[in-house]
Structures are given as structure tokens and as C-alpha cells.
């Protein structure tokens, strides 16, 4: 049903229906922004990824031939944009993501988003504290991964995608994704050895 609806929305958007396109955006942009935030670690970078990705989708929608799902096609675009951004960031050391402080926040980050209250009801204070500590270590360890390894790890463990879907999104084979995930896991576990 979802796929059929997607198909109809895409067809309408391809015919110039702006409302159909916006409906597609609303359907997937939460996941897109989540992926971008997890990978880029900075709201402004994630915002750039969001804009660039959806504008690319909008400009190239007429080229979409329904050979895969819209979701897969969208993720392919988003991950490519993220990979480009991460590679650019890697080539500019001054553009690295800022270090997290002990409370799990970026150094000097005091903007509106940072000040918002953590209000997930499932977390008790102790668990939350431990989670934040682990988050800090993981965030630091993630910086050691290659852009592709980060994307694969992120899509698998935070987005919950299957390896085949990740391969489709990245335009590569499941085997290649497996290798990336294996390397990423090993690197992270080595970095986080003390947590074992």
C-alpha cells in the first residue's frame, strides 16, 4: 500500500504536482534528517544535507524510472550527499566535527537545539548518564571510521536498515556493505575496548 502510494505520489510529482512532492518529503524527511544528524553531528551540516538532498531529488525526479523503490532512490541520494560532505570534511581538518564534552554536548555548543530538554520517557537518570558517556566514546570512535564505514554503520544500527537495502542505497553489493560493516564494528570495538 505504501509502495503504491509512493508510486502515485512520485508520478504526480513528476507531472508537476508540488503538493505530491511535499507529501513525499514529509513522509521521509524525518529519517533523512536523522541520518544526516547522526552522520554529520552538527545541525547546520545536517540542514545543508537535508536541503541539498531534497533539492537534488526534486530536480532529478523526472529521471526516476521506478526501477527501485523511491525510498531506496532517496537514500542513495542522501547517502551520496553525506559521503561528499564527510569526505570534504576529512580533507579539511579545521572542518572536523567538534569534540563532545563530558555531558555529551559539543564544546561551546549553546544554540537553541542544544538547550532543548531531553524528554524521552523511557530513560531513567542513571541510564541516561551512562548512555551519554557511551555516546561520547562512540562519537569519538566514529570519527576514526572512513566516510563509507560511518554511513554503513549508521544505516545499519541507527536507521535499522538491512544490509541489502544499504547496498541498494549506496549503489553497491551486499557483500561490500558487509565488509564495511565488519571493519567499522572491529574499529569501534577496538576503540571502545574498555566498555567490554
Amino acid at each position: 500500500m505504501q509502495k503504491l502510494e509512493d508510486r502515485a505520489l512520485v508520478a504526480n510529482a513528476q507531472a508537476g504536482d508540488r503538493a505530491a512532492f511535499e507529501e513525499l518529503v514529509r513522509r521521509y524527511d524525518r529519517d533523512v534528517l536523522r541520518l544526516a544528524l547522526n552522520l554529520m553531528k552538527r545541525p547546520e551540516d545536517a540542514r545543508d544535507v537535508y536541503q541539498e538532498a531534497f533539492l537534488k531529488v526534486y530536480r532529478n525526479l523526472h529521471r526516476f524510472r521506478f526501477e527501485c523503490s523511491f525510498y531506496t532512490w532517496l537514500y542513495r541520494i542522501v547517502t551520496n550527499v553525506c559521503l561528499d560532505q564527510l569526505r570534504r570534511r576529512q580533507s579539511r581538518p579545521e572542518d572536523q566535527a567538534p569534540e563532545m564534552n563530558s555531558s555529551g554536548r559539543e564544546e561551546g555548543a549553546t544554540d537553541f537545539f542544544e538547550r532543548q530538554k531531553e524528554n524521552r520517557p523511557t530513560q531513567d537518570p542513571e541510564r541516561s548518564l551512562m548512555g551519554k558517556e557511551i555516546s561520547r566514546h562512540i562519537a569519538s570512535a566514529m570519527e576514526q571510521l572512513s566516510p563509507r564505514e560511518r554511513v554503513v554503520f549508521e544505516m545499519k544500527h541507527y536507521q535499522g536498515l538491512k544490509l541489502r537495502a544499504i547496498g541498494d542505497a549506496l549503489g553497491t553489493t551486499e557483500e561490500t556493505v558487509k565488509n564495511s560493516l565488519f571493519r567499522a564494528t572491529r574499529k569501534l570495538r577496538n576503540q571502545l575496548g574498555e566498555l567490554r
Partner: protein
Amino acid sequence: MSGGEARKGFAPAECDEVASLLVFYACDETNAAENARIAEHLLACDACGEQLRQERAFLDALNATVEPADRLDSSGVLLAQCRSELSEKLDDMHAPRAQEHWSAFGWMRRWMALRPAWSGAALIVFGVLLGTQIVPWLQTANDVAGPAVNVLAAPKLSDEQLSKMAIAGIRVSPAQDSPMENVQLQLNAEQPLVLSGNVDDSEVRRVLTYVVENGERFDPGVRLDCLDALKSRTADQPVRQALLTAARKDQNAAVRMKALESLRDTANDSAVRQTMLQILEHDPNPGVRIEAVNFLVRSLDSLGLENSETVVVEPEMAQIVRVLNDLEQRDPSRFVRLRSAAALRQIGSRDLQ
């Protein structure tokens, strides 16, 4: 990785193989065959069991972490902002581009507005160039409608060509190596051509004569130039006839006067004198009549010269006297009347002699 000493009954190669699958086994990315094999192996291998426990602990730790996305946009404000920005960008893409009204030399106007002194200087230089170089060049280029063919009076224009031609320009200039003036005629016939030479060239003279004789088809200025060119060739009968025709019939008084002036040296020709009498009787322009009276006076003056060829027979003289009397009595121009009276006195004194 897996501790080799803890393995029971498994070759190290099999442990390594299973251990490499445990990462995916822990996150449910192994197939049924792999699952069965791993499960069987784990029953007997403590080391791999320990590794699986570590993999799961790692995933549990990961699950316990706060995702950056949750921390960075826990309230959804960033998402709302992103949606708003995207919507604005889509609006911008859909909005028709505000087209700047195109105006010729708009860039030049902007440049000039910012540099008034330079603009003034540039305009002065442009004006000087326009006046001294470009305008004369354009006039030369536009005198004829197409590429001009320079013809040295060689091709003979047919009567039909003559009847259809138009004169775009005529230039009479002194020749360096000849007493005759050079004449250059720019004709617009079937094919534009330039006819150059002097009035001794029959073709040039023929065209000039045609223009004078058929004055109504050509510009008065052109006719005056043609008369000017032909005045030295009044001995030629066709030329003289054309001049007489122009003096008698041309619509323009200046052309008629110029024709009379050109006939100055033909006073001994009876036909010319007859034409003068006709002009005196019928031409409405006093200036033309005065020129005709002067011509007659000069003609009569020459009667007294020893080497004069002028012969005026008695019937003709009687006709002249009658016309002059008539002018003296009735011509509206006082000068014409006075000149007529003077001419009559001159005739009377000649008769007395």
C-alpha cells in the same frame, strides 16, 4: 578475537570462520544455513560464545546511547526549520525569474553613470570621430545602392536605360592635365554605375544633355550641375538644343536662368534669339526675363563689333523691337522695362548710324 585455548574439538580455521560471522549473527544479518552452523558451533566452543557475548554487549551499549539526532533535534525544531527552508527554495525555483528589462547599451549607461568625467570625454571623442570620419564615409558609401562599377564612358547607355535611370550624384571637378572639367556621374539604372570622364566624352555629354532636356525627372541641383558642365560645349548642337529647351521649359527658374547664362556665347544664333523673345513674352519669372533682355542687349552689342558674326535680318529686328516695346510698356518688372527701353535706344542709335 576468539581464544584458541578455549576451543573444544574445533579446528582454528572453523573458529575464525564462525567468528567472522558473529558480527552479523548478532545483528540478525546471517542466513538460515549460517545460523544453523553458528548455533551448532557455539554449543561446543566457549571462545566463540564469549565473542558473541561481547558483540551483543557492544550492540546493547550502542542501543543505550543517545543518538546524535535525538540530542541535536529532540524537539523537532530543526526538522521544522528544514521543511520551511526547503519550501522557500522550491518557491524560489517556481517563481518566474524577475527579468531585468533589457535595454540597449544598458551596461554602457551604468558605466557612464558611475564615471561622468570619463563619459564626457568619451562622448566628445566619439562626436569628433563621427563628424570627421564616419559621416563622410557613410555618405560616400550610401551614394549608390550597391557596389559601383567604374565605367570610363565606354559602355553606351541605351535610350531605354536613359529613360529609366536616376542620378544619385554628380561631381564636377577641375582636371589636372586638361582644361576640361572632370565629370563623375553616379547613376542608378538597372545596375548602379559610375560614369566618369569629361564633356568631350560623348557618353558623358549625352547623359548630361538628357538630364538637362528632361529636367522634370531629375533633381534641380543635378540639373544645375549638368548645365554647369555643359556650358563649355554650347557649340554642340544637341547641347545647345537641350539648353534652349531648359531655358524655355524647365520648371525651376534658377535652372532656366542658368541655361540662359550658359547660352551667353551663342548670341549670333538666330534660333537662340528667337527663344529669348519667346521667354520675354511668356516667362513668368522677372529674373529670367531680365537675363533674356541682357542676352538680347549683348546680342545687339555685338552687332557693332568689327569682327562680329552677328547678323540680324530686318524681319527679326522688327520682331525684337516689337517685343521690347511691349516689355517697356507692360512688363510688371521695373528693371525689365528699363532694360527694354535701353535696348530700344541702342537699336535706334544703331539704325541712325
